[in-house]
Structures are given as structure tokens and as C-alpha cells.
């Protein structure tokens, strides 16, 4: 196993998450709640996070459809780069749990973690290529100051070779994590594995 990354409170290790509200109990869940959980993933019925969100099944159902449509849509931006956008947004928002999950997904898809260490260390200068730097920079801007994103930012992405569909996929990915981070950060907290 590779050495885990631990930088400035962020990690690519597997974390748990502890809710501050009582989760739905699966055995007592309604058909709508179960359908919303199953739409998300086969593991959602055992996840405290999704079981808390199951208190509002229609919201969870639609969010799950949006999540999977954005992160898994065929074509367009490579999935690893969508995961990078998600990890940058999570780093900027301070969502340690989301950052760990999507750093792992980036690594699984890209077979490397160099840019993840850079994002954890200092997102503003992260990126191993001009294309990656532009993706990271745009993700920070859309995440932190959406009102200031302009045609110039779109042009910068085009200059390093992104197609319009790739730019749309990046916008969706960053926006989706503006959503996910706020749930993770405000309905519970990450739990680190017991210190070795």
C-alpha cells in the first residue's frame, strides 16, 4: 500500500462520518426512502450520511440522480478531472471528508496522486500541467466567487484545450460539490481512523 497523504488536516485515507442528527432506521424506512437510497448507490443503506438525508426522500432521490448524472456521464471531461474539480472544491470549502473520498476516486482513475498532494498543500498553485492548473484555478474561482466567473475564465479553459462540453462538466462537478460539502460540513463531522 502507498503511503497515505496527510497535509494540512486533509488526507486520502478512508474516513468515517458521524451525523449530528438521528439517521433513518433502515428497518423502519418507507418505500420512498429506500428507493432514494438505492438510487444513490448499493452502499447507501449502510451510510449514516445518506440515512440522515433519507429524512427527505424526494430531495435525496433527485440529488442522487443529479450526482450520478454529473459524475458518471459518458464522454466530455475525463472522470478523473471531474473528481479533481470535486476535490479542489472540497479542499477550498474545508470539507475533509469529501476531499478524502474524491482524492481516492481521482487516484483510482488517474493512477497517480501528485496533484492531490499539491491541492491539499496549496490549491492556488496546484496542477501538474497547464491544463490541470487551469482546471484547478477555475474550480477555486467558481467555488469561492461564483459571481466573478466571466467569459475570460471560459477562454482560459479553452486555451488549454478544454471543449465546451468539458467546461460544462467541470461547472457541474464544482457546483455539485458546493452542494455536497455543505451537507457534509453541517449535518455531521468526519471521524479519523484510530491513531496507530
Amino acid at each position: 500500500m502507498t503511503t497515505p497523504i496527510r497535509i494540512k488536516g486533509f488526507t486520502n485515507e478512508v474516513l468515517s462520518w458521524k451525523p449530528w442528527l438521528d439517521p433513518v432506521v433502515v428497518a423502519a424506512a418507507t418505500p420512498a426512502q429506500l428507493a432514494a437510497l438505492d438510487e444513490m448507490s448499493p452502499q447507501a443503506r449502510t451510510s449514516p450520511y445518506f440515512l440522515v438525508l433519507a429524512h427527505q426522500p424526494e430531495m435525496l432521490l433527485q440529488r442522487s440522480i443529479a450526482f450520478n448524472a454529473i459524475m458518471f456521464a459518458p464522454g466530455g471531461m475525463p472522470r478523473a478531472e471531474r473528481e479533481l474539480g470535486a476535490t479542489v472544491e472540497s479542499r477550498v470549502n474545508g470539507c475533509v471528508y469529501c476531499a478524502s473520498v474524491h482524492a481516492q476516486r481521482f487516484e483510482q482513475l488517474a493512477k497517480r496522486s501528485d496533484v492531490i498532494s499539491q491541492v491539499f498543500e496549496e490549491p492556488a498553485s496546484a496542477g501538474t500541467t497547464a491544463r490541470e492548473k487551469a482546471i484547478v484555478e477555475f474550480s477555486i474561482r467558481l467555488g469561492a466567487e461564483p459571481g466573478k466567473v466571466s467569459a475570460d475564465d471560459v477562454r482560459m479553459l479553452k486555451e488549454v484545450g478544454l471543449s465546451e462540453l468539458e467546461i460544462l462538466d467541470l461547472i457541474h462537478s464544482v457546483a455539485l460539490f458546493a452542494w455536497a460539502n455543505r451537507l457534509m460540513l453541517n449535518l455531521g463531522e468526519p471521524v479519523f481512523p484510530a491513531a496507530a
Partner: protein
Amino acid sequence: MTTSYDASPPLDVIDATVPLAPSQATRTLRLQRDKVVAATQGSYDAMFSPTVEGLSVAERLLVALHACSVSKAATLAAHYRERLLAEGADRELVAAVGSGAPVADARLRTVLAFTASLIERPIEGDKASIDALAEAGLSTPAIVALGQLIAFLSYQIRVVAGLQALAAAEVSP
């Protein structure tokens, strides 16, 4: 009116608030991700559904107006202001929430403070904020609905901002 084309209604709330015209390249681009388009509008519909218990539709629209005002998302703020007025909300209350002026109702005040904090400083989320919502009378499903709503608005604001930038680049490439 010369063609029915001009009169065709916007596809959804995102199209209407960017805004994107039917013939526009950015709109055609957006439709390449039709599942995202449908789930985004589906999420909007779920966020403001009358069947959600614990938080009235008017309260949710006030949260949305406040979130968009705090984020300086002008076209989305205008959308929620219009919806509030169409629902018969008090004009002074709508003006106060839109401008960040204090509101008299303690429950609404707690909800709006949580909204601004979660929009602007999500890292500051803590258990005490959740407990304050519970003390203000919100049930667990109502707190989950509020969290989802504010988080969704953060998403919606960025989708609109991103599409506005794409549309602007389309005009002056």
C-alpha cells in the same frame, strides 16, 4: 410577434434565470447533459414541494431569496422574489430578507442566520448550529430539508454563474 419561436417558454428555472434563449449555443450545449438538466429541475421541484413537512413553502422561498442575495446572484434572487410575491408574501418582509435587514420572527431569524452562515462559511458548521435550529422548533426532517435547500442553492448559483460565463464567451469568443 412573428414566430412562435420567440414565445416558447424557457426549458426550466436555470434557462429562465441565466437567461438562455432557445436558439443559443450554450442552451444547445446544456441539453447535451439532459439527465443533469432534468435532475436539476427535479431537485428544484423537490426543494419547494408543498408535500415537504416541517418548513413552509414561504419559509423555503425566503431562505432562497436570502441565500441568493447574500451570494449576489441577482437573476436568481429576482426569481425567488417574484415567486414570494406571487405566493402573497408580505412585501416588507420580502424586502427585509432580500436586503439582509433584521426580521422580527425569532424562528425565521434563526433560519436565515443559518442560511447565511452555510452559504458563506460552510466550514463553520457545528453541532451548536443544528441544536439552535432544533430549539427554534425545527424537527429533524425540517433541519434536513433546510440543509438540502441551502446546499442545493449553492449548486444552483454556480450552475447559473457558469452558464452565464459560457453564454458571455459565446457572444465575444
